[in-house]
Structure formats: structure tokens, C-alpha cells
């Protein structure tokens, strides 16, 4: 029998929440270990940072000089590279610092800022190396990481999810919160994958799965204004978890200029 494919889970600037998509799998985690060799996954135990692997998952954004260098090594050692979550895929909520002067903040927060080695920006992995698949979400869930892994084990391309959250709301019998409650839901521009989690609990989607395909942020932003949001509040809707994702970044910029 051929050796099992090797898998690694790496971490960059992040909260570790996406790695829980693996750790919370329950019995499926045992099945996963029968299908692949998990050679590097520091949070779970195995550490072999430079092991050549078939599949590498990366959590977290590129935020320090060390990240830049480590990312190149991971790319060179990995056949198929998958980013997991808003940080690795779009720079994360911490990319808000791209709008500010990061070094001035260090001086005001840290007594000895010279100990902090940080880049001025927080950027997605794809800004630095080729990424083979992006899994969106804050955090991603077990279904997403397993579906991607299973597809690769079959030797086929993983199915990309890029429809809008609205479709999932309707399939789950969730009443539209924007229409029935008048709250500024980002579902009409946000990528599906969460199972319409927030609207199912009566709150508005805040876009943690990033932009869907073919978004119309201009029209939705105007609707938010109609609901009573001031332009700066519209900006904050778009510039949040996935503020550096191009569709949301551009929307935020447009509404800032009003």
C-alpha cells in the first residue's frame, strides 16, 4: 500500500480559531488520521515545520518579517496549499491596521516598541505565494476542511462555494432579517458556507465569509443608508472581518469618500 499523503496545518497571525475546525472534528479527526499523515500541526502536537507535504493548510495573515520567510519555505515544501479563514485569505480583521500608521501605534501601546518586529501591513497569503484553494470564513468549519481534503484525496478539484448567504437562508427557512427587521444584513454580498448561522438567530450577517461572486456593494450600501445608517456606519459594515478583501475594501473606500 502506498504511503499516506502528508498534511500540515500552519499558523501565522491569527486567533487559532480556524485550527479548531480540525480539532473539533470528533470521530472524523480519527478517520482523517487514517487517511493522511498529519506531520505538522503545532496546536495538536506534531511539529515538523519544514516537512515536505502533499496538502498544507495555512491559518493566519502575513504580519511579521519572519512570516515572509517562513511562508516561502512552506510553499516550496507543499504540493497543494490551502488558506483557511479570513486572516490567511484576506488579511483578517487585523488588516485594518493597513489604514493606519502601524509603527505609531506600537509606540503608544508598548513601553519598548523596539522589541516588536512587525510589518506595517497585514496581508493575505496569496499576496506573497501562489495559493491553490481559498477557504473563507471566520472561522472556517469542519465541513469545509474535510470537503477540500476529501476531494484532493479523490484527485479532483475541491468545489468552490461562492453563492450568496441569501440562498442558504431560504434553504433553511430563515426569514430575511433585512426585509422583516430592517437590519443591515451583509448576506446579499457575502459568500455562503456558514449555513446562514447569524440570520438563523435573527441577527444580521456581518460578512465573515467574505465577498461572494458578483457582488453589488453599491446598491446594498444605498439600502443600508435607507435603513438609517450614516455613511461612516456603512463603511464599518464593509471594513470589518474581511476589510482587505477587494470587493469590501473598494466598497469601504467609496463610502468613506461620501
Amino acid at each position, binding site marked *: 500500500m502506498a504511503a499516506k499523503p502528508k498534511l500540515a496545518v500552519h499558523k501565522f497571525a491569527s486567533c487559532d480559531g480556524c485550527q479548531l475546525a480540525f480539532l473539533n472534528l470528533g470521530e*472524523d479527526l480519527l*478517520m*482523517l488520521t*487514517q*487517511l493522511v499523515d498529519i506531520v505538522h500541526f503545532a496546536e495538536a502536537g506534531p511539529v515538523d515545520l519544514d516537512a515536505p507535504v502533499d496538502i498544507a493548510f495555512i491559518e493566519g495573515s502575513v504580519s511579521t518579517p519572519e512570516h515572509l520567510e517562513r511562508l516561502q519555505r512552506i510553499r516550496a515544501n507543499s504540493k497543494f496549499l490551502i488558506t483557511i479563514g479570513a486572516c490567511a485569505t484576506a488579511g483578517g480583521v487585523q488588516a485594518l491596521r493597513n489604514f493606519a500608521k502601524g509603527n505609531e501605534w506600537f509606540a503608544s501601546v508598548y513601553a519598548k516598541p523596539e522589541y516588536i518586529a512587525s510589518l506595517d501591513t497585514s496581508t493575505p497569503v496569496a499576496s506573497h505565494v501562489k495559493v491553490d484553494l481559498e477557504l473563507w470564513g471566520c472561522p472556517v468549519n469542519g465541513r469545509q476542511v*474535510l*470537503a477540500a481534503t*476529501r*476531494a484532493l*484525496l*479523490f484527485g479532483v478539484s475541491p*468545489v468552490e462555494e*461562492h*453563492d*450568496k448567504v*441569501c*440562498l442558504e437562508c*431560504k*434553504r*433553511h*427557512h*430563515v*426569514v*430575511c432579517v*433585512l*426585509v*422583516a*427587521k*430592517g437590519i443591515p*444584513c451583509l*448576506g*446579499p*454580498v457575502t459568500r455562503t458556507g456558514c449555513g446562514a448561522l447569524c440570520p438563523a438567530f*435573527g441577527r444580521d450577517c456581518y460578512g465573515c465569509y467574505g465577498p461572494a*461572486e*458578483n*457582488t*453589488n456593494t*453599491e*446598491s*446594498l450600501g*444605498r*439600502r443600508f443608508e435607507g435603513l438609517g445608517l450614516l455613511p461612516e456606519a456603512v463603511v464599518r459594515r464593509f471594513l470589518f472581518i474581511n476589510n482587505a478583501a477587494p470587493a469590501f475594501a473598494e466598497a469601504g473606500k467609496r463610502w468613506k469618500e461620501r
Partner: protein
Amino acid sequence: MPGNYLPRASFQALLETLQQTGYRCVGPQLRDDAIVYDTLRHVGDLPRGIRDLQAPGQYRVEKSDCPRFFAWANGPQALKPLLFAPQEFLWKTERAADGRLRFVAAVPDAVPTAVIGVRACDLAALRLQDAHFLKDPSRDAHYAARRERLFLVAVHCTRSAPTCFCASTGDGPRAEAGFDLSLSELDDGFLVEAGSDTGRGVMARLPLEAASAGQTQTADAEIAQAAKQQTRKLPSRNLQAALFANLDHPRWVDVAERCLSCANCTSVCPTCFCHSEADQPTLDGAGSVHARQWDSCFTQGHSYIHGVTIRADTRLRYRQWLTHKLGSWHEQYGRSGCVGCGRCITWCPVGIDITEEATAICGDTTHV
């Protein structure tokens, strides 16, 4: 002559008769700030005195002292999800011990269901869904199993929402056919009419009283009033020629600037039937389930064919929806795919109005 008047205090008898006959009762109730259809155990579950306030992109409910259970126009869904399931498994594959693949069809399983409070537009939409899903040779076993076990209690509309336009499509507000029982709601009770043998059987078991001529007149007048309340309309019942003559109309660009391409309209539309199918493998790779789920002509996947998305932008997607719904449906099903329920207007997050767009694109076309 036996009576046909069911006092409001006896409405629970209708639910109990249906339950004793073996039906799960489903009916309108207030949930998450909207009228939704769900399992109905008791008359107290009905949205007594609730009114809906509908406008493009907006739905609100308000409570009133009105004793009526059906003093509202409609909610986001009615029959469609009960028959055309939003998500369901069609078949699965298993790897047998000898290594061969086995294909196992999902057995259609349907609980006999009685739906209380079906509107005329819902019945018109049901006829179109039937035409789609029950047509041989591609009759859908899952839809058919649920359809065969369905008992329909219609309620004539006595109040139209500002978004309703069923009078212009010829589908309401009176439920003319396709029900087992129909109800006209008055302040103190209901006038009952049977539309099928099953309905007559249920009706015979109800504690009915004689209706007065005045009650019948009041009921008819209220339905007529509901038709008169409607202000929206489509320019014609057949817009096929007008739409296809205007494929390059600038209004398609205009509506695409507003449209979110979010598929809310097609999801709440009671006649839209598009779906996608996908295989979901088990983690060990030994099997998979083949699932069907609601899709929409507003998604990228809907027009994806071998590496190319045919309708990549919103202008083409909206045009596809409208020219199919109001145009080429005539060729497919002998009528327009719009029953005038107005759901696509209310539940569009940005309030795009199909009657306004159709009128802008087709002009004041008057040929029927």
C-alpha cells in the same frame, strides 16, 4: 340543506377532524416577525389579529384587535417548500464488500399533510409546479409522493397587500379551484365550500350551521374589495413577444445597477423550480449521497457550462429571469410563470418591483 357556516369557536374542530383523519396540519403562524407555515397543533397557533404591512423591500407585522386568523395577505413562503424541498437526498452510492458500487434510491417518504390557509395565488403556483414536477417522463417521485398526500384548505383573500397583483394575472384573490376545502373568513366564523370528494368527507364531519344570505354577500363583497385594493399590475398576461423584442433595452442595465443578484426573488417565488445537484462523499471515500437543493438563475453556477459562465453579470441574469418567467414560460407551460403574489417585490432586499421593470421594458403593451 346542510349548513356551510363554521363558527369561529368551532375552528379547532376542523383541525381535529383533519388530525383524526391522519393529516399533519400545517398552517400560518407568526414567527421571526413574519407569517410562516409550520406544523399547526391548535387553533391558538394561528396568527389571530395579525396584519402584514408590505412594501418593496419591506415586511412588517402588526397586532390588532381583529378576531380574524387570516387578515393578512401572505408571508415569504407557502406551499413551495412543502412540496419542492429546499434540500433533499435523491440517491446514494455505497461500496459493496466485493468492491462494486451500489446505487440506492432514496425512498420518497411523505407524511399526509393538510395545509390550512392557502391563498389563490398559491394554488395557481401549485398548478405550475405540478406541471413541472409531475410531467412524464421526468415525473419527480419525491414531489409526487408529497403532492398525493396533500389536503388543501384555501382561504379567499379579503385584504390585498400593496405588493399584490393577482387580479391582473387572473389568479386571485378568490380561490376558484384546486382546493379540498375553501374558507371565506368573516368576523365571527367561516363559510366553507368543498372542492373535492375528500373535502366533502371532511366537511360532513364539521359542526356546521346554516349561513345567512347576508353572510354570503359580505364574504363576496370582501373578496371583490380585495381585488379593488390592488394597485400594481403587469402590462399584459403575455409579455413574451414584448420582452424578446426588447433584449437590448437600456432598462436591463438600469435594473442591474440596483439588483443584488442575491436570489431572494427566485427563492420566494412560488413557481421558480430551478435546483442544482451535488454529490457529498463520506469522509472515508466509500460512499456518497446525491443531494438536490434550490438554485437560482441569479447564481454563477446556474449558467456554468464546461468552463464558461454564460451569464456572468447581473444584467444577463435578471434578463434571464424575467424573460423566462414572463416570456418563455408561455411556450413551456401555456401561461406566464407569474401568479401575482408580489413576494419578489417585498422580499427583494432593495425593493425591485417586477411590475415596474416589466412595464418599463415592455411599454404599455396591451395585446393579451
